[in-house]
């Protein structure tokens, strides 16, 4: 992975190895095209660039492949993704979830592409910034709430009143339900953000061990093999997590939509 190695002046001296490795450097946002709209910094940053790339990759995957009856390999990748999310939505939402398929599918594909592109060395992980994931989560939260009120009217507020509860406990439970409802966007966004950030920091820290052994002299170099092999395993784990977190985000979106759409189970 992309270890932020040192500028030449910090280069390790022979023997006395000092390497300046900063695992947080990868999360730095810098403007590529400075844009200033009325005092608001709306620059085109590296984050924006990688968001565009993620959207572009998804669009290419789904649109560029020729749609044949017998799918080509590229086309079947897109079809597998479509089927995967369609089945997941059918399991959770039933038929009522059909109108929301494009939304959830877009969300899933964008997060998946952003997470996976983050695994490319020297790239930037868009979803490792809380503001990006929070923006996605608040859209889901506000959207699901609006859908709930449109579908059920004021009756949507019954979501906060669990049925079959002793009347004494009710005031306490309503408070708990309301709090848990309003922490949904926070937990949804922090889950994705923390996973991405922690995972990538961990990768860079372990990559730093490899570099440190490498520059510590020939005698130490074979020891660097251990963290290197660990790195390979961790990279595999991170790719799994990149997929899982996109899936979890989509599943939780469906569960929140389910609360709004099918209140009387």
């Amino acid at each position, binding site marked *: 992975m992309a270890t932020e190695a040192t500028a030449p002046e910090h280069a390790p001296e022979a023997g006395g190895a000092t390497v300046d490795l900063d695992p947080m450097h990868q999360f730095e946002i810098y403007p590529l095209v400075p844009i200033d709209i009325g005092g608001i910094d709306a620059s085109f940053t590296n984050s924006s660039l990688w968001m565009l790339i993620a959207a572009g990759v998804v669009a290419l995957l789904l649109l560029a492949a020729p749609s044949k009856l017998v799918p080509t390999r590229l086309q079947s990748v897109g079809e597998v993704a479509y089927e995967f999310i369609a089945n*997941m939505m059918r399991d959770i939402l039933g038929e009522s979830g059909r109108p929301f398929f494009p939304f959830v599918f877009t969300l899933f594909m964008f997060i998946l592409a952003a997470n996976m592109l983050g695994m490319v060395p020297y790239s930037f992980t868009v979803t490792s910034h809380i503001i990006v994931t929070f923006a996605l989560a608040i859209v889901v939260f506000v959207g699901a709430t609006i859908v709930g009120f449109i579908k059920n009217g004021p009756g949507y507020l019954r979501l906060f009143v669990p049925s079959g509860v002793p009347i004494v406990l009710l005031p306490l439970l309503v408070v708990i339900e309301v709090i848990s409802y309003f922490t949904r966007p926070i*937990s949804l966004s*922090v*889950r994705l*953000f*923390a*996973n991405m950030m*922690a995972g990538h920091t961990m990768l860079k820290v372990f990559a730093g061990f490899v570099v440190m052994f490498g520059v510590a002299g020939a005698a130490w170099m074979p020891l660097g093999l251990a963290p290197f092999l660990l790195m390979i395993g961790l990279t595999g784990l991170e790719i799994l*997590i990149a997929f*899982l*977190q996109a*899936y*979890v985000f989509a*599943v939780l979106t469906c569960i929140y939509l389910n609360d709004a759409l099918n209140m009387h189970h």
Partner: protein
Amino acid sequence: MEAEAAKLIGAGLAAIALAGAGIGIGHIFGNYLAGALRNPAAAQAQFPNLLLGFALTEATGLFGLVVALIILFVF
């Protein structure tokens, strides 16, 4: 105690959250395995739920990491 030292101790304490995540992940995989060995035919269908549970549990440990980062860098 100096505020700086207290910050570092607090951030370290926040890492204890990982103990809960470890117990949780162990529970999930252990119970999945127990269930899968009893009824191997049903195991495959529950594999997505296993991964979902794993991801949800793992995230709770990472909330502890976020607390540690807030302690270290915000205050």
